[in-house]
C-alpha cells in the first residue's frame, strides 16, 4: 500500500540529507509505527507519503514513493486526498474552517461526496471520536485533545485507504489517547485501513502495532520488522520493554498484559526487598512560594476554573494532571500573570503576578508554554541568549551558562528552528530560568521528546527542585510524573479532585498508573530505575 523505494530527501540549504536511501513497504491493512529519536526525520518521512514533502517544504526527493500504485511524483497531494489522509503534529495549524462540523465536512466537500452521505458520515465520525458534544463549537475554543480528535475526524470522513498520523496522542490525556488509539485499531481491523503513525510515547501504541519502522536518523538504513524484532536492537523502547530487558524476559513483552504474565517471579523476588529505601525520596519541602485562594476564571461563558485553593512550596515538583480542557493551562497562565482572575486571588511570593510588569514577573514566576518554540524568535542561539540577558537585566552570559548546564554542546550559531525538540525546550527553559524565578511552570514539556530527552528533563527538574524552586508541570505523561513528581494534583472540570503524594495518586488510578506500576502491582514501584535499584540491593542483577 505504501512503498518507499530508495528515497533520499535533502532540504534546501541542508548540509546533509534528512533521510538516506529509505526503502520499505507497508502492506494493506497494517498499523505501522515509525519510531526514532527526535530530529531523525520521522515527520519528513510521514509528510513524504502524500507528497507534502517536497511539494510544500522545498528540497529534493530522490527515489520514489508509491501509494496504492500511484507515484507522488505524478500526483499532487490534492489528487491523493481520497487515498491518503494526513494529520500533522499541530492540529490547530491544519484547520481550514472555524467550526467543528465544517472541519469534518471539508475534505468530503472537495471530493464531491453527496450531501446525504456527508451528513451521515459526519454523524458517524462524531460518534466514533466522541465529538458530538462539541459539534457546534468554534475550533479555537477547543482544548488541545479535542482539537486533535477533530483533526483526525476531519481526515477520516474522506474515507482514505491510508491514514498518516504524526504524534496523534502527544497532546491527549491518557484516557483520550486510549480512545483515539482504540478508534484507530478499529479502523484497521474493521475497514482494513493502512495506518502509519509516528509516536514518541511508545508505551501507548506499541501493543497495537503490527510492524515498526525504526529511523535511526544518522544516515544508517531504516530497520523494519515486528515490534519484538526491532526492540531487540533499538535504543528507543517503552518502559515495559525496558523492564523486560532488565529482567531478561523472552520474548520481550510489548503490553502490560504480556509483561504481567511473565512478571510472577520478579514480583516474588521484589516482595522480599525492603522497598521504601529504594524509592526516590521527596526533596525537602520548604516555604510556600505560590498560593491560589478561591481562584475562578472563565473564557466568555465557559468556566475554566471553579474555586481553586492550592499551595506550591519550595523544593517540590508538582504534577498537574487531568483531562484535556480541565483547566491546567489556565491555572498556569494565572500563576504567571497572563490572565486576571474573575474572583479569588493568586499570589506568588506575596505579589499578584498580573499586576506586575513583565520585567518583575519573570523574577518570581517563569512559564515554559506548551509550544516552547514561541518563546524563541531570534535567528541564532547566541542571539536568544544575549537577548534574554538584556531583557531580564542580567549579567551577559547568564543565560548561556544556564543553557550549558541543561543541554551542553548547543552550537551558538545554530538557528533555534534547526535544534531538536529537546534542545529547543532546553533553550526555552534556560531563558525562563535565567532570571531565577522561585516558581517554575512547564506546560506539557514532554510533548515531542524521545525517551533520552525526557530522561534529561527529569534530571534537570529534579535538580531545580533540589535547589529550592517550586516546579509545577502540567502533563499527561504518567511516566514522567512517576519519575519526577513529588505531589500530584488532579483537576477535573476546573476543580481540584485529588491532591496528594504522586505515588499514591498514580498507583491508585487505573488511568494514570505508569506501566511498571501496572506490571508490578501491588508493589509500589513506578519506574524501571526503581526496580533496578531494588534488584541491585537484593544482590541479583540481571534477574531471570
Amino acid at each position, binding site marked *: 500500500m505504501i512503498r518507499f523505494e530508495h528515497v533520499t530527501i535533502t532540504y534546501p540549504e541542508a548540509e546533509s540529507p534528512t533521510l538516506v536511501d529509505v526503502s520499505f513497504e507497508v502492506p494493506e491493512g497494517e498499523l505501522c509505527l515509525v519510531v526514532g529519536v527526535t530530529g531523525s526525520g520521522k515527520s519528513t518521512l510521514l509528510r513524504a507519503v502524500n507528497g507534502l514533502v517536497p511539494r510544500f517544504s522545498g528540497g529534493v526527493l530522490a527515489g520514489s514513493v508509491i501509494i496504492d500504485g500511484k507515484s507522488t511524483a505524478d500526483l499532487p497531494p490534492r489528487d491523493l486526498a481520497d487515498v491518503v489522509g494526513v494529520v500533522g503534529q499541530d492540529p490547530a495549524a491544519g484547520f481550514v474552517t472555524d467550526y467543528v462540523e465544517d472541519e469534518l465536512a471539508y475534505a468530503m466537500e*472537495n471530493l*464531491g461526496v453527496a450531501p446525504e452521505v456527508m451528513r451521515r458520515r459526519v454523524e458517524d465520525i462524531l460518534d466514533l471520536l466522541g465529538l458530538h458534544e462539541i459539534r457546534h463549537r468554534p475550533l479555537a475554543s477547543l482544548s488541545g485533545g479535542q482539537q486533535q480528535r477533530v483533526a483526525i475526524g476531519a481526515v477520516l470522513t474522506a474515507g482514505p485507504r491510508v491514514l498518516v498520523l504524526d504524534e496523534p496522542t502527544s497532546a491527549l490525556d491518557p484516557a483520550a489517547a486510549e480512545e483515539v488509539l482504540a478508534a484507530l485499531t478499529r479502523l484497521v481491523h474493521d475497514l482494513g485501513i493502512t495506518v502509519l503513525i509516528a509516536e514518541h510515547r511508545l508505551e501507548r501504541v506499541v501493543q497495537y502495532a503490527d510492524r515498526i519502522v525504526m529511523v535511526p536518523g544518522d544516515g544508517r538504513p531504516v530497520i523494519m520488522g515486528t515490534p519484538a524484532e526491532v526492540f531487540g536492537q533499538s535504543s528507543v523502547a517503552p518502559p515495559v520493554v525496558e523492564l523486560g530487558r532488565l529482567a531478561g524476559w523472552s520474548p520481550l513483552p510489548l503490553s502490560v498484559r504480556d509483561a504481567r504474565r511473565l512478571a510472577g517471579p520478579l514480583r516474588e523476588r521484589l516482595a522480599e526487598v525492603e522497598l521504601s529505601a529504594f524509592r526516590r525520596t521527596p526533596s525537602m519541602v520548604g516555604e510556600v512560594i505560590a498560593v491560589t485562594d478561591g481562584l475562578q476564571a472563565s473564557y466568555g461563558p465557559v468556566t475554566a476554573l471553579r474555586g481553586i485553593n492550592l499551595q506550591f512550596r519550595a523544593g517540590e515538583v508538582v504534577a498537574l494532571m487531568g483531562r484535556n480542557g480541565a483547566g491546567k493551562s489556565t491555572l498556569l497562565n494565572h500563576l504567571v500573570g*497572563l490572565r486576571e482572575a474573575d474572583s479569588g486571588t493568586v499570589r506568588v511570593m506575596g505579589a499578584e503576578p498580573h499586576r506586575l510588569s513583565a520585567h518583575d514577573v519573570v523574577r518570581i514566576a517563569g512559564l515554559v508554554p506548551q509550544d516552547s518554540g*514561541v518563546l524563541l524568535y531570534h535567528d541564532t542561539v547566541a542571539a536568544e541568549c544575549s537577548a534574554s540577558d538584556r531583557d531580564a537585566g542580567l549579567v551577559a552570559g547568564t543565560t548561556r551558562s544556564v543553557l550549558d548546564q541543561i543541554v551542553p554542546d548547543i552550537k551558538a550559531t545554530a538557528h533555534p528552528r534547526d535544534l531538536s525538540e529537546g534542545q529547543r525546550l532546553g533553550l526555552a527553559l534556560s531563558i525562563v530560568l535565567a532570571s531565577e524565578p522561585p516558581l517554575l511552570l512547564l506546560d506539557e514539556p514532554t510533548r515531542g521528546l524521545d525517551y533520552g530527552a525526557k530522561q534529561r528533563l527529569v534530571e534537570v527538574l529534579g535538580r531545580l527542585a533540589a535547589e529550592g524552586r517550586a516546579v509545577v508541570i502540567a502533563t499527561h505523561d504518567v511516566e514522567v510524573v512517576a519519575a519526577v513528581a513529588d505531589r500530584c494534583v488532579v483537576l477535573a472540570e476546573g476543580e481540584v479532585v485529588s491532591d496528594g503524594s504522586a505515588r499514591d495518586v498514580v498507583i491508585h488510578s487505573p488511568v494514570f498508573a505508569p506501566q511498571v506500576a501496572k506490571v508490578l502491582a501491588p508493589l509500589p514501584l513506578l519506574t524501571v530505575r526503581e526496580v533496578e535499584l531494588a534488584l541491585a540491593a537484593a544482590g541479583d542483577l540481571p534477574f531471570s
Partner: protein
Amino acid sequence: MTAPRLLHPGAWWLWAVGLAACALRTTNPVLLCLIIAVTGWVVVSRRTDVPWSRSFASFLRLGLIVIAVRLVFQILFGVRIPGTTLFSIPEVTLPSWAAGVSLGGPVTLESLMAALYQGLRLATVLACFGAATSLCSPYRMLRALPTVLYEAGVAVTVAFTFAPQAIVASRQVREARRLRGRSDRGFRAWSASALPVLEGALDRAVALAASMDSRGYGRRGGASVSQRRRSVGLVLAGLVAIAIGSYGLLDPGAPTMFRIPALAVGVAALVGSLAASGRSTERTRYRPDPWVKPEWIVSLAGLIALASFVLAGRISDALTPSTNPLEVPAVPLVAVVGLLVATLPSWFAPTPPTLATVSTSMAVAA
C-alpha cells in the same frame, strides 16, 4: 428576529468592497471618518466568536501607522505646495539627474492636509478590509470561492489568510514577550516583534495551504486538461476585464468604454467559465450557506452606498475637497444618506452564533 446563523460570506465582502470603493472615490475627511464609523458600528454589532473577529482594531491601528508614514513622507520628500508655511526643514540640493525629487524645504499646512486626506483614505480602505475579516472569517470566504480559482490555490490561501494570521501571531508574540520579561512598549516593542510576527504568519499560511491541499482543495475532478485550460483562460480574461471596469468606475477620468461595458464583459466571461467548470467539477457543500433576504439587504446596502457616492460625484465636487486653497470640506447629503443605508446590516443581518448560545444549547442537550 431570525435564529443565530452566519451570513453568506459573499454578502459581507460585497458590502465591505462597496464601502472600500466609496472610500477610494473620495478624499473628503468627513465622509472617510463616517465610513470608518459605519464599519466599526456594524462590526461591533455582528462579529463572531472566532479569533479573526478581534482583528478590526488591529486594522485600525495599521491605518494610523499608514497615516503617520504618509505624513512623514510628505514632510521629507513631498511635492512643495505653496501656502501657509508651518515650519521649514533644511533643503538638500540634489544633483541634476535627480531633478523632480525634492528633499526638505518649507512644509505648508496645505501639503500636510492633502497628505492627511490621502492617508486617511488608505486607512479607511484598511478598515473596510478589517471589517470584512472580522465579520466573516477568511476561511469561509475561501470555501465560497468558485472552483476555477482553485488553480491559484496556494497563492489565494496565503493572500486571504496572511493578514488575519499575522494578527493571531502577534497576540502569541505579545504573550511570549511577556513571558520573556520584555516590558518595553511602543515603537521598540513593535519593531522587535515585527519579524517574528511576519515569519509566524507566513509559516501558518503555508501550513494551512499544505493542509488544504492534502485534503483535496483544488482537485482536478473530472475535467480534461483542455477543458481546464479553457475555463482558466476565461476566468483570467474575465478578471482582467472586471479589474479594468472597476478601475474605470473608480477613476472619474477614465474613458466610457472602460467603465460599465468592461465590467459587463468581465462578469459575462466569469459567469460563462463558472457555468462551464461547474459541470465538470464534483464539488458538493455540507450545509450550503443560503442566499436569502438578509444577504440581499447586506450586499445591496454596500452597493447602494457606492451608488450614492457615484451620484454625489456627479452632482458636486464635495467628494474631493480642495486643499489649495484649504477650505472646510462640504458634506454631500446624498453620500451621507448612502452611508446610513450601509448601517442596515447591523439590524438586518442575523446575529452570529456565539459560544454562549452554543453552550446553552449544549447545556439544554445535557
